[in-house]
C-alpha cells in the first residue's frame, strides 16, 4: 500500500469515528477524535500495526481554553506518524487508552501528574513523576505555574502514596531526566518474584524550562543535548529535526550528512561503553578495559569533528556549526579502519569467554509479544525479534543514502541484546565511512529562517538505546510545548517482565541490558527477602558477588 492509500484509509476511519483530519504533512497525519471514541480508534490503529510512541499532555487554555492529550502513534512499516488529539475542558474527564494499548500507561500517568488531567482509570494509581511531597494542586506543566516555582518542603506527606508494605529508603537519586530509577526486588530465596519500580527522582523540568523566557529556539539545542550524558547529540538532533519539520525549513544536504555522521559516531562510542560496562558487571574486567581502550580513539575523533568529546554542541536549527574538511575526513577514515580491526579481533574473544556467554544466554528473556505490547525500542526490541529502527522506518537526515543492515535476534535474552549492539558497531562504522565518502558540497546551515506559531510536528531519531521522540507545538520565540520521550522511558516497563522468576544474580545484568544511561546512574537496587523481610542495598556492580553463590 502506498503512503497515499494509507493516509486515505486513516482519513476514512477518522470520519467514521466522527473525527476530523487537521493537517497532513510528509511524515505525519494529525487528527482530532471525539474523546468518547478514542479507545476504539486507538485499538484499530494498534491492530493495524502501529506502535505507540508516546503521548503528550498540553495546557492549551491560552489558545482554546482546553487541555489536550496527543497520542503519538507510528506506523513503522509505512513510515508515518499518526497524532491523535483529544481534548477536554478543565476538570472534565478524559478516557485512557491504556487498556487497549498497554504502552500508554506511563505517559498518561505523566500527563495526569504534570497537568492535573483527570484520566479515567488512573485515579487511584500512585504518582509516577511527581515526588511524594509535591503539593497536591500544583501541576508544573500548566502555563500558570512559573518555571522557577519551588514547593515548600513538607516532610509529612512523605510516603503516604506508596503501598504500605514498601518502605521508602532515602535515595537512590540519580541525576538524569528519564533514567533515574529505584527498584525493589522481592525475592524468595534466590528467585526474583516481583519488582517494584519508582523513577523520576530528579526530574529536572527541562520541558518547562524550555518554555521559559530564559531559552529561545536558538539556545534550546544546547539544553536538549544535556538531557542525556551519553547520547545527548540524539536529543539535540531530534529537537532541531522537529523544529525544522514544524517550520518547514530546508536544511542543506551537507549539514544532514554531518548530523548523521556524528550520530553514528555517538552510537559507536555508546555501544562500546555499554559492552565494557556489561563486561564489568559480569566480573570480566579485562574485557571492560580493552573495550574502553578501543573506544578512546572514537572519543578523540568526536572531538576532532565537533570540538568536544561529548555534548558536541554543533546542532542549531537550520544546520550545524562545524564543518568536516578533507584532512579531518582522512583522519576519521583512518581511525574507523583501526577501530574496526581492533574491535573485530576483540569480539572473537569477548563472545567466547564463558563469563559472558553463559551468564547472558537465556537470562532476562523478553518474549516478542510483550515487547510488542509495550512498544519497546532499540536493541531491546531488536533482541526480541522486532525489526524496529527509526533510521530505516522513518528515514531522516542522510540515512536514506547509506546502506546498512538492521541486526535482529529472536531469543529475547541478554545475549541477544548484547549481540545486537556488537553488530551495530560494525554497521555504524560502515555508515560513517559511506557518508564521509559521499559528503556533498555546499553550506552547512541556512542563513535565516522563520518559525510560525502553533505548528505541530513529531520527530524521531534512533538513539543507541532506541527511538527518541520529540513533539513540538511552536510558539513565539520558543516552543509552546516541547515533549521529550527518551528511549529508556519506553523500555523500563519491560524490565518487570524480564526480571520475574529469574535468579537474583542475573537481575543486575538484566537491568543493565536495556542500557539505561550509565554515565549518570549508579543504580542502587534494594533486595528484600519475602520470607524473612530482610533487606539490604546493593549497587549494580555488586552483581558479581552474587554470581558465584
Amino acid at each position, binding site marked *: 500500500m502506498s503512503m497515499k492509500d494509507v493516509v486515505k484509509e486513516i482519513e476514512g476511519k477518522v470520519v467514521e469515528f466522527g473525527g476530523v483530519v487537521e493537517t497532513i504533512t510528509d511524515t505525519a497525519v494529525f487528527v482530532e477524535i471525539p474523546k468518547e471514541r478514542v479507545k476504539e480508534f486507538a485499538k484499530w490503529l494498534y491492530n493495524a500495526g502501529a506502535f505507540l510512541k508516546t503521548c503528550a499532555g498540553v495546557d492549551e487554555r491560552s489558545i482554546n481554553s482546553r487541555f489536550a492529550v496527543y497520542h503519538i502513534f507510528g506506523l513503522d512499516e509505512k513510515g508515518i506518524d499518526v497524532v491523535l488529539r483529544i481534548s477536554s475542558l478543565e476538570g472534565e474527564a478524559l478516557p485512557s487508552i491504556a487498556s487497549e494499548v498497554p504502552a500508554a500507561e506511563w505517559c498518561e500517568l505523566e500527563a495526569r501528574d504534570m497537568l492535573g488531567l483527570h484520566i479515567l482509570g488512573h485515579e487511584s494509581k500512585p504518582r509516577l513523576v511527581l515526588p511524594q511531597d509535591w503539593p497536591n494542586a500544583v501541576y508544573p506543566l500548566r502555563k500558570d505555574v512559573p518555571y522557577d516555582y519551588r514547593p515548600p518542603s513538607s516532610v509529612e506527606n512523605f510516603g503516604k502514596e506508596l503501598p504500605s508494605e514498601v518502605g521508602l529508603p532515602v535515595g537512590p537519586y540519580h541525576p538524569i531526566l528519564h533514567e533515574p530509577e529505584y527498584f525493589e526486588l522481592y525475592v524468595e530465596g534466590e528467585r526474583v518474584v516481583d519488582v517494584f519500580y519508582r523513577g523520576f527522582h530528579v526530574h529536572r523540568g527541562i520541558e518547562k524550562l524550555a518554555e521559559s523566557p530564559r531559552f529561545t529556539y536558538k539556545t534550546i539545542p*544546547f539544553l536538549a543535548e544535556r538531557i542525556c550524558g551519553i547520547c545527548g547529540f540524539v536529543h539535540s538532533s531530534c529537537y532541531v529535526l522537529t523544529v525544522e519539520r514544524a517550520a518547514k525549513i530546508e536544511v542543506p544536504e551537507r549539514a544532514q550528512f554531518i548530523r548523521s555522521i556524528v550520530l553514528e559516531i555517538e552510537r559507536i562510542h555508546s555501544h562500546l561503553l555499554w559492552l565494557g560496562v556489561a563486561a564489568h558487571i559480569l566480573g570480566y574486567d*579485562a574485557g571492560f578495559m580493552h573495550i574502553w581502550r578501543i573506544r578512546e580513539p572514537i572519543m578523540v575523533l568526536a*572531538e576532532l569533528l565537533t570540538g*568536544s568529546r561529548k555534548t558536541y*554542541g554543533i546542532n542549531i536549527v537550520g544546520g550545524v556549526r562545524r564543518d568536516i574538511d578533507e584532512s*579531518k575526513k582522512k583522519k576519521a577514515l583512518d581511525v574507523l579502519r583501526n577501530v574496526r580491526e581492533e574491535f573485530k579481533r576483540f569480539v572473537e574473544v569477548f563472545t567466547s*569467554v564463558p563469563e559472558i556467554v553463559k551468564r547472558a544466554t537465556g537470562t532476562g528473556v523478553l518474549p516478542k509479544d510483550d515487547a510488542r505490547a509495550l512498544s519497546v525500542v532499540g536493541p531491546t526490541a531488536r533482541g526480541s525479534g522486532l525489526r524496529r529502527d527509526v533510521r530505516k522506518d522513518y528515514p531522516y537526515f542522510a540515512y536514506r543514502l547509506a546502506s546498512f543492515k538492521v541486526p535482529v535476534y529472536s531469543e529475547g535474552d541478554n545475549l541477544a541484546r548484547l549481540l545486537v549492539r556488537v553488530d551495530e558497531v560494525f554497521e555504524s562504522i560502515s555508515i560513517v565511512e559511506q557518508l564521509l565518502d559521499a559528503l556533498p558540497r555546499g553550506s552547512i546551515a541556512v542563513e535565516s529562517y522563520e518559525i510560525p506559531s502553533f505548528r505541530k510536528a513529531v520527530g524521531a531519531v534512533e538513539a543507541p538505546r532506541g527511538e527518541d521522540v520529540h513533539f513540538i507545538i511552536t510558539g513565539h520565540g520558543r516552543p509552546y510545548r516541547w515533549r521529550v520521550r527518551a528511549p529508556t522511558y519506553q523500555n523500563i516497563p519491560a524490565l518487570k517482565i524480564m526480571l520475574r522468576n529469574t535468579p537474583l544474580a542475573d537481575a543486575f545484568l538484566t537491568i543493565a541490558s536495556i542500557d539505561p544511561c550509565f554515565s549518570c546512574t549508579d543504580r542502587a537496587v534494594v533486595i528484600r527477602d519475602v520470607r524473612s523481610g530482610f533487606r539490604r542495598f546493593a549497587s549494580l556492580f555488586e552483581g558479581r558477588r552474587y554470581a558465584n553463590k
Partner: protein
Amino acid sequence: MQISRIASPLKLLTIALKVGRVTKKYPFGPPLLTESFRGAISIDPAKCWGCGACTLVCPPNALTMRLEGEKIVLEYFKGRCIFCGMCADTCPANAIIVTKEFELAATSVEDLKEDVIHKMSKCAICGKPFVATAEIRDVMKMQPITEEYANICPECRKKRAVKAFGMRFGAST
C-alpha cells in the same frame, strides 16, 4: 567451553602484549587535545563594545550584563560555561576567542569570574547614562552617523523625531 576457558585469556594476552601501555603521562608529555577542541573563552576588553549580544545567545547564562552606577559590567562566569562558542560566533566586534584552556579548577568561586567594565556615555539631552562609550566609538567608525545623533539616548531620539514630525505638519506640540 573447556577450550575457550584457556584459549580466550591467551588470545587476550596476545592482544594486550601487542598494544602495550596506553595510559598517557598527563600532565606531562604532549597535549591530549585535538585542533578543534573548545575550551574557556577569552574576551578582549580593548575590542569589546559592551553591546551585550553575547549574553543573549549564551545558553547557560554564563555571560551576563549588569549596571553598576554609571558602568556596564560584562561578567563571564566560567563555572557556568559549557564551552559551546556561541558567543564567539555572535560577537559583532570579534572580541571573543575560544581558547584551548580546560584546566580551570579554582579554590574560590570568585576566581572563576571575569569582568569587563565599560564606562557609559551620557545622553546629550537628558543626561542619563544609556550606552557603553566603546560601542558609540566603534559603531561610529563603521556607520556613517554623526556624533550628534549617536550621543542621544533612544528615548530622547524618539521625542525629538516626534517633535520634528509635528513641526513639519504644523501640529501644535
